[in-house]
């Protein structure tokens, strides 16, 4: 997978992969010496990949979360579900293309999918508004969740957004109200909700579809009160300080486990989810299935009271 965009810290891996590929072409002649050379390089590649990815800085993880080849919601839908039918519109204003919703079959079970959708080429990026939802997107998502509640379908949420869209029209149509309403309604939605953070989880834009029974997080994704750039611009008065802000914000999956905000980190395939979409989807699907089964053993009231407790207990403070 040497084509496309390569992040700086990925370069040694990609270069080694290229060398192996070239040697393979030579070796097709049948040289034994070359074959053993290739084997040793492959071992070296495995070791190098492991080394690089186990020592990533927070900022490097942010870059991986934004990798243009990273699997997006529609990739997970494709690899994890069958019979997905996309449903559109908030029945009030518009169809927000930054969020994709609809029923599907997941591991033999009927579910409702709601996921923020990014895109890879310029035209599609604009079509998806870079995964930044407007108020009608939050209202569309809530309409689908209510539909799920009516037909007793568990809701699978995929979070991947650089933020709720900051624009004039978004304010006119009540971005704050739309997010607040969703947070409150999701807290009492009478079907299981599994949240999976698959890339970027920026602030209220993520939380607006982010309340649920279980919060899973892919290893190289981030979730924060503000983007590193936004934080840097405010506190350091310089967006270029984003790497420092990323460190300070503690926004990676291991940080969030420690802070008691997420339930589980899902390890990505070697070299990151962008190198193996199918593998990433299998890992996530297995975890969703496991947690879904556990939640479905509870009564609805038990599930809701656990969901409330989960968020009720978040925060760190002392009593003087």
């Amino acid at each position: 997978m040497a084509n496309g965009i390569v992040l700086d810290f990925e370069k040694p891996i990609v270069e080694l992969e290229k060398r192996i590929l070239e040697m393979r072409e030579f070796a097709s002649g049948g040289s034994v010496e070359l074959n053993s050379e290739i084997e040793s390089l492959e071992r070296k590649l495995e070791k190098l990949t492991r080394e690089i990815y186990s020592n990533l800085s927070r900022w490097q993880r942010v870059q991986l979360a934004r990798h243009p080849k990273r699997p997006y919601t529609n990739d997970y839908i494709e690899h994890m579900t069958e019979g997905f039918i996309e449903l559109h519109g908030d029945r009030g204003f518009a169809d927000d293309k930054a969020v994709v919703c609809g029923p599907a079959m997941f591991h033999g079970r009927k579910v409702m999918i709601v996921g923020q959708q990014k895109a890879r080429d310029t035209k599609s990026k604009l079509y998806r508004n870079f995964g930044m939802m407007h108020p009608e997107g939050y209202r569309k998502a809530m309409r689908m969740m209510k539909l799920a509640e009516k037909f007793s379908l568990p809701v699978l949420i995929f979070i991947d957004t650089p933020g709720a869209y900051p624009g004039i029209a978004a304010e006119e149509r009540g971005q704050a109200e739309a997010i607040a309403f969703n947070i409150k309604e999701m807290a009492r939605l009478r079907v299981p909700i599994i949240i999976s953070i698959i890339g970027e989880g920026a602030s209220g834009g993520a939380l607006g579809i982010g309340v649920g029974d279980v919060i899973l997080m892919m290893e190289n994704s981030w979730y924060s009160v503000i983007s590193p750039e936004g934080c840097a611009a405010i506190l350091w008065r310089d967006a270029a300080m984003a790497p420092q802000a990323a460190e300070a914000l503690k926004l990676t999956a291991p940080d969030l486990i420690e802070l008691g905000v997420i339930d589980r980190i899902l390890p990505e395939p070697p070299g990151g989810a962008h190198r193996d979409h199918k593998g990433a989807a299998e890992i996530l699907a297995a975890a969703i299935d496991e947690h879904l089964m556990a939640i479905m053993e509870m009564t609805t009231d038990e599930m809701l009271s656990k969901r409330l407790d989960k968020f009720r207990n978040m925060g760190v403070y002392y009593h003087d």
Partner: protein
Amino acid sequence: MVEWFRKSKQGLISQTRKDIPEGLWTKCPECGEIIYVKELEKNLNTCSHCDYHFKFATTEYIKLLFDDGLYEEHDAGLISGDPLQFKDSKKYTDRIKAAQKKTGQNDAVISGYAKIDGREVSFAMMDFSFIGGSMGSVVGEKIARSIERATMRKIPLIILSCSGGARMQEGILSLMQMAKTSALLAEYDKVRAPYISILTNPTTAGVMASYASLGDVIIAEPKALLGFAGQRVIKQTIGADLPPGFQSSEFFMEHGFLDKIVHRRDLKRVVSQLISHFT
């Protein structure tokens, strides 16, 4: 339980003083009129020419809204931790200490029980002078407990917001306070008592995108800055100037997100009438 007591004479630092420059006269930032300071104070810190509402200290709001300025304070002893060990140009713990020294308060909310025209309410009031009224774990927890007290006693809930949003220095935990407070408001719905959300200048971002926008009735003071996204961010995103009056109380009223804009002098009467209609 804390005793009922009169706190108005304890001399909490008044924001009123700070917003008005030294001297007898001040200039209204909205209409530019020169106002006699004594007159401004008499008008509850509102401009008599254009109704611009200057900052009003939480202690002043308490005197304005609650019978005899009395209230029973709860959770005053909650103090912020530093879960991220956050440091930018300054350590977060130093920012907290400085704000505590400046305001005489432990964090950006005063909360408890009070009476409005004889009716008991659970209240929380945000204090902008404490790190911009930003919401971290303590603010979230105090708001949460105010909602729980209202739920427990089945009494009206009054939250007066004044905040720039979530507190960055507590990272994701600040964001989660939005979920904590909003989820408890879903529980409060069950007791069928009214929640009146009062928005003052400014109420934005994480606070606006959670409990402030979830009132059964939402009231704003005139000409307050409200909204989700910051104006600088919007300007950068769209690459154009913002229309006049954008994100003001009047803007949100026009677009259907406020029930009412209420002048400070009428605030108690309107809140009291609403409580009476819904209880």
